């Protein structure tokens, strides 16, 4: 098999997804609370604290504006944690992947299962944020439901990137570079905390290449009951990250494990 061949997939990715889901079932409540705590603390601190100083912002409250950004951000982080730390444990520490590929499951199936699973975690985290935002009355029905597939797409994009990074890692320490040097700046540049058009034009161009920017750009209008102008472009960029990233993750993981 050529290492650069497209992923050779079968429905055997489903038992891999189910394996992860079975582990998660027992830890679901603490896991969801853990996923929610961090963004909620930030949202309340900044949304109310900073929001009080800012006052009316872009036609709404700063809290509502920020909340939409945090729906996208928590989806990004949920998929990232799952595809970095958790996938690395299963791949390298527990050798769970080694056990699975001895069965009639290919490495590509395993990756697809992990990819789908990380997106599922994204959906859980982003969905919980949506519920909180809705409870505060900052989401318009039924538009809020349209945000769910967008959350899944954000999850797939970041799961793909995470799995590619995972294939290069030799230890958990490696992931902190990605978190600090890639994801944190991305969060600053993607219009989560402040509008992108306040930045110099060159920086704006760079920001528009980032997947999180496109996620925020769709979700924020959706929560306000509108469809973003050029929404299809945002969807297309996210889909490109999801597809190209998964291909990259497949090639890198084959290089690592199918020696």
């Amino acid at each position, binding site marked *: *098999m050529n290492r650069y061949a497209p992923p050779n997939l*079968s429905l*055997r990715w489903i*038992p*891999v997804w*189910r*394996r992860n889901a*079975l*582990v998660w079932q027992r830890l679901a409540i603490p896991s969801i609370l853990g996923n929610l705590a961090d963004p909620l603390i930030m949202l309340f601190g900044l949304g109310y604290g900073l929001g009080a100083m800012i006052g009316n912002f872009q036609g709404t409250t700063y809290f509502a504006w920020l909340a939409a950004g945090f729906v996208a951000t928590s989806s990004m982080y949920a998929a990232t944690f799952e595809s970095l730390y958790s996938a690395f444990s299963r791949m390298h520490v*527990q*050798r*769970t992947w*080694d*056990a*699975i*590929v*001895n*069965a*009639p*499951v*290919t490495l590509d199936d395993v990756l697809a299962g992990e990819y789908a699973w990380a997106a599922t975690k994204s959906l859980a985290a982003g969905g919980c944020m949506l519920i909180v935002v809705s409870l505060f009355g900052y989401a318009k029905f039924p538009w809020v439901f349209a945000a769910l597939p967008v959350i899944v797409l954000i999850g797939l994009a970041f799961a793909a990137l995470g799995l590619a990074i995972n294939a290069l890692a030799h230890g958990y320490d490696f992931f902190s570079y990605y978190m600090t040097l890639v994801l944190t700046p991305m969060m600053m540049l993607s219009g989560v905390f402040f509008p992108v058009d306040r930045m110099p034009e060159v920086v704006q161009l760079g920001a528009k290449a980032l997947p999180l920017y496109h996620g925020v750009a769709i979700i924020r209008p959706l929560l306000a009951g509108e469809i973003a102008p050029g929404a299809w472009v945002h969807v297309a960029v996210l889909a490109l990250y999801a597809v190209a990233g998964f291909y990259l993750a497949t090639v890198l993981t084959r290089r690592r494990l*199918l*020696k």
Partner: protein
Amino acid sequence: MNVLSAKGLRKSYDDNEVVRGVDLEVAKGECFGLLGPNGAGKTTTLRLCLGLTEPGAGEIELLGEPVPARAREARAKVGVVPQFDNLDPDFTVTENLLVYSRYFGLPAHAIQARIPGLLEFAGLSGRGDSRINTLSGGMKRRLTLARALVNDPQLLFMDEPTTGLDPQARHLIWERLRRLAQEGKTLVLTTHFMEEAERLCNRLAIMDKGLIIAQGSPRALVAEHIEPQVVEVHGAGHEAWAEKARSLCPRVEFAGDTVFCYATDVKPILESLAGQSELLYMHRAASLEDVFLKLTGRDLRD
């Protein structure tokens, strides 16, 4: 009928060729052992046979399926016991079997019916709800063996199935493997325990530096490659005595502070030792270990 055949297998990592032209034939119902020092290429050969890595050259057929082209179909009929335990620590004993069976596409009711039998086989009846980290090393190995049987495979690959186990645990694994052999399953195992190879395998291949250097039944290998009697001698003055021994037996080997004399007739050697009270000696029949050391050398393999 051959359940596994490999011809001219080669595999390189960068510039290092670890499998350098291996031919294997394993017949149905056989217990076949791949014996070799660390780094001989045993594990890589198994991975090639399972289609987990692409050969540089050569052909493999496993249970009628060409590998790696149809490795997935072949693996559906095979069980694997890996060298390192990779049971799922997040699950109980029963869940490990259940989750693993899903990778074979087995329906839940089929595996539920098989689980009590598999637990009995693993000696883990009544431990179905135990967590993996509460099991001993021997229990984990037996569960790994039971897990390899979830799909009722025709052929079982085992990579060093008893490494790291105490003698009691090892004997229990051997007993289970013999039971599987009696049921007609084909077993392929790698090992560097001569005792294991001698007790379990009908046929062995000794592998070193990526090549198979000898093949046959344990008894035939001993008969073919080595003199039947051995005298091991050590103690003060053994070197001086060894010079004399060279004329008394066809082959003399040194390892550390011990002299090994291999011969068909050891009478002259024993007579020569009779007068040497400072020399300690042991006279025994030659074993597979002697063949192994003769063929692969006595140097350390780290």
